[in-house]
C-alpha cells in the first residue's frame, strides 16, 4: 500500500498491428445506453471493442441528474425527507434512516427504544427485497429472461405490502422522522411480518436450488470480473462488493448504529472477489437479515415511537457539521450536513454507494467479453436515482 495507487486507465486505444505494420482489424466503439435494457436505468457506457473483447470502457452519468443536493439546500430539513426516498428508489427506508440518523447526530436527539426496533426491522426488510430483486435482475442479464425475476418480484411484493400498510406507500415510504418514526406499527402488522420472514428462508432455498449450483451461472460468473482486495479498499468500494473481495467491513458491526449491537448475526466475507462471490454474499446476507428480523420481531418493546423533544415544525439545529452513515443494501450511504442555524441546511451532501462503486467498473471489465461486461455491471448493483442524484 505504500506505493501510489495505480492511476485509472485512460490510455489511448490504438488498433493492433501485424509485424508488417498492417492493421489487424478495426476497433469498434459502442455506446451502450442510456436506453439499453441491461444498464439498469439511464446509464451509458462508452465501450471500445476489439472483436468481442472490451479494451476501454468509460461510464457516462447525468441522465437523471436533478441536483438533489441543491434542492436539499433550498428547503427545510424535514421537507427534504421525501426527496431522500427518490435517491435509491428500491431502498427508501434505509435512505430515510441514514438522513434521520445524520440530523439526529446534528441536533442531539434520542430515538426511543421501540422506534429503533422498527427502524432495524424496516432496514432489514429493505435489504431482503433489494438483494432478492438484484439477483433476479442479474440472472436476467445472463439471459434467464423473466422467470427468476418474476419469482423475485413475487417475494418483493409481500414486503412492499408490509411497507404500504404501515407507511401508506409501497416504494416512496417517507416513514422516518428526526427522533423516531412517523406512525407506530400494530400487533397485527408484526404477526404478518413474522409470517413473511418465516416463509422467506423457504423461498431462498427454492431460489438457491435453481441458481447456486446452476451450470450456466457458474460458467458465467466464476473468476469473471475479479476485484482484488487492495483495489477494493483503495477505490472506496463498500457493501457486498467490498465484502465479496474479502474485507470484513460492515457498518452494522463497525459503527453499531441504532441497536445493531444487540443482535446476534455474522458478516459473510468472500474469497475471490468475482461475480459469483458477490452473488453468494448477497444470499448469505439475506440469511443473516432473516436472523436479525427474527430477533427484532421477538424482542420489540412497547413504548413511544417519537422523541418528545423532537420538533417537527420550526426545526433549527445549532450551527455545526456532521457526517452520518449507515449500511444500506448497496453499501455505505452517508449524509454530510453543514448547519448555519437556519431552517435550511447550509450544505447538504449525499455519499451515494452505487456511484462510487462504479469507479472500478472499467478495471473489472477490461479483457472480458462485452456480454460479461453486462453481467459485471449487474453484479455492482446500481440504481440511477442515486448515481445521478
Amino acid at each position, binding site marked *: *500500500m*505504500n506505493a*501510489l*495507487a*495505480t*492511476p*485509472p486507465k*485512460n490510455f489511448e486505444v490504438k488498433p493492433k498491428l501485424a509485424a508488417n505494420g498492417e492493421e489487424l482489424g478495426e476497433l469498434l466503439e459502442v455506446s451502450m445506453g442510456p436506453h439499453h435494457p441491461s444498464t439498469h436505468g439511464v446509464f451509458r457506457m462508452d465501450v471500445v471493442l476489439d472483436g468481442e473483447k472490451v479494451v476501454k470502457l468509460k461510464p457516462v*452519468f*447525468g441522465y437523471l*441528474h436533478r*441536483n438533489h*443536493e*441543491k434542492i436539499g439546500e433550498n428547503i427545510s430539513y424535514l421537507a427534504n425527507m421525501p426527496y431522500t426516498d427518490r435517491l435509491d428508489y428500491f431502498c427508501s427506508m434505509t435512505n430515510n434512516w441514514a438522513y434521520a440518523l445524520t440530523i439526529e*447526530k*446534528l*441536533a*442531539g436527539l434520542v430515538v426511543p427504544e421501540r422506534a429503533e426496533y422498527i427502524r432495524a426491522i424496516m432496514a432489514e426488510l429493505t435489504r431482503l427485497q433489494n438483494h432478492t430483486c438484484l439477483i433476479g435482475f442479474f440472472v436476467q442479464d445472463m439471459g434467464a429472461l423473466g422467470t427468476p425475476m418474476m419469482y423475485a418480484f413475487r417475494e418483493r411484493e409481500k414486503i412492499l405490502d408490509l411497507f404500504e400498510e404501515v407507511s401508506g406507500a409501497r416504494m416512496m415510504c417517507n416513514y422516518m422522522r428526526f427522533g423516531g418514526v412517523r406512525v407506530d406499527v400494530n400487533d397485527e402488522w408484526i404477526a404478518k411480518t413474522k409470517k413473511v420472514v418465516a416463509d422467506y428462508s423457504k423461498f431462498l432455498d427454492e431460489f438457491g436450488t435453481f441458481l447456486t449450483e446452476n451450470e450456466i451461472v457458474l460458467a458465467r460468473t466464476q473468476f469473471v470480473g475479479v476485484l482484488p482486495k487492495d*483495489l477494493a*479498499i*483503495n*477505490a*472506496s*468500494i463498500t457493501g457486498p462488493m467490498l465484502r465479496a473481495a474479502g*474485507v470484513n*467491513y460492515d457498518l452494522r458491526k*463497525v459503527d453499531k448504529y441504532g441497536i445493531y449491537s444487540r443482535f446476534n448475526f455474522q458478516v459473510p466475507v468472500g474469497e475471490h472477489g468475482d461475480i459469483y462471490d458477490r452473488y453468494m454474499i448477497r444470499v448469505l446476507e439475506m440469511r443473516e437479515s432473516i436472523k436479525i428480523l427474527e430477533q427484532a420481531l421477538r424482542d420489540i418493546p412497547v413504548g413511544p415511537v417519537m422523541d418528545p423533544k423532537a420538533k417537527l415544525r420550526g426545526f433549527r*439545529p*445549532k*450551527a*455545526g*457539521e*456532521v*457526517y452520518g*452513515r449507515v449500511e444500506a443494501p448497496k453499501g*455505505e450511504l*452517508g449524509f*454530510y450536513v*453543514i*448547519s448555519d442555524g437556519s431552517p435550511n441546511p447550509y*450544505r447538504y*451532501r449525499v*455519499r451515494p454507494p452505487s*456511484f*462510487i462503486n*462504479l*469507479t*472500478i467498473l472499467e478495471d473489472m471489465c477490461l479483457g472480458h467479453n462485452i456480454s460479461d461486461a453486462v453481467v459485471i455491471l449487474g453484479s455492482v448493483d446500481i440504481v440511477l436515482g442515486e448515481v*445521478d*442524484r
Partner: protein
Amino acid sequence: METLEQIKARLEAALPSAKIEVLANECAAGERSLLVDAASGFTVAKFLRDDAQLKLDYCSNVTGVDWPDKELTEKIKVKQVVDGVEKEVEEVKKNIRPGYLEVVYHLYSMGLKHGPVVLRLRTENRADKTHLPSLTPLWRGAEFQEREVYDLYGVIFYGHPDLRRILMWDEFVGFPMRRDYIAPDDFEYEPTPHDEVLVEAKKHYPAEPKAEVKP
C-alpha cells in the same frame, strides 16, 4: 484513535512546512476537522494514509463547500470627545471576509476500523485561484467525487487523471452548486434563425413573389 491534537503534533514534527489548524465544531456530535494549507495537502494526506498508527486507507466522502464573501460586523469601543467630555462610544466596523471554496475529505481506516479524520483544503479565492491538489493518486475512491466537485463547484484538481464534467453535460457553462448561481430560464434553449442568420438563410429561399401588377 489518537486525538486530533496528537495527530497535529505528529504531522508538524514529520512535515515542518505544513500549516495545520484544528477547527472546532459546536453541534451535538462535534466531529472536529483538520484544516491544511493547499500546498502541503497532498503530503499530509499521504502521511495520514501511510502512517502505521492511523492507516487511513479508506477515503469515504469528498464534499465541496462554497463560502462566498461574507460581511463581518464588529463592535469596537472608541473614545470620543463630545462637547468637551470624553465618552466611550460604540462603533460598528465592517470587514469583508474573502470567499473561498473548500473540499472536505472524510477518511476512515478499514484495517483498524476507526475514524473519521476530517481533512479540509481551501482554495485561495472563488474566481481565478481555485486550484487544489488531487488526492485521487492516493485514494482511487476520490476519482469520481473530485470530478463531481469540479463539475458543480469549479475546483480545479491538479494531478487528477481525468478531470472532466461528470453530472452536467460537457458544454455546460457555470457551476450550479455555488451559492450565487442563477439558473437560466431555459436550459434547452436552441436558437432559431434570426437577425444575421436569417438574412443569410434567406439567400437560400426562393424570391418572394412580387405584388401582382394590374393592367
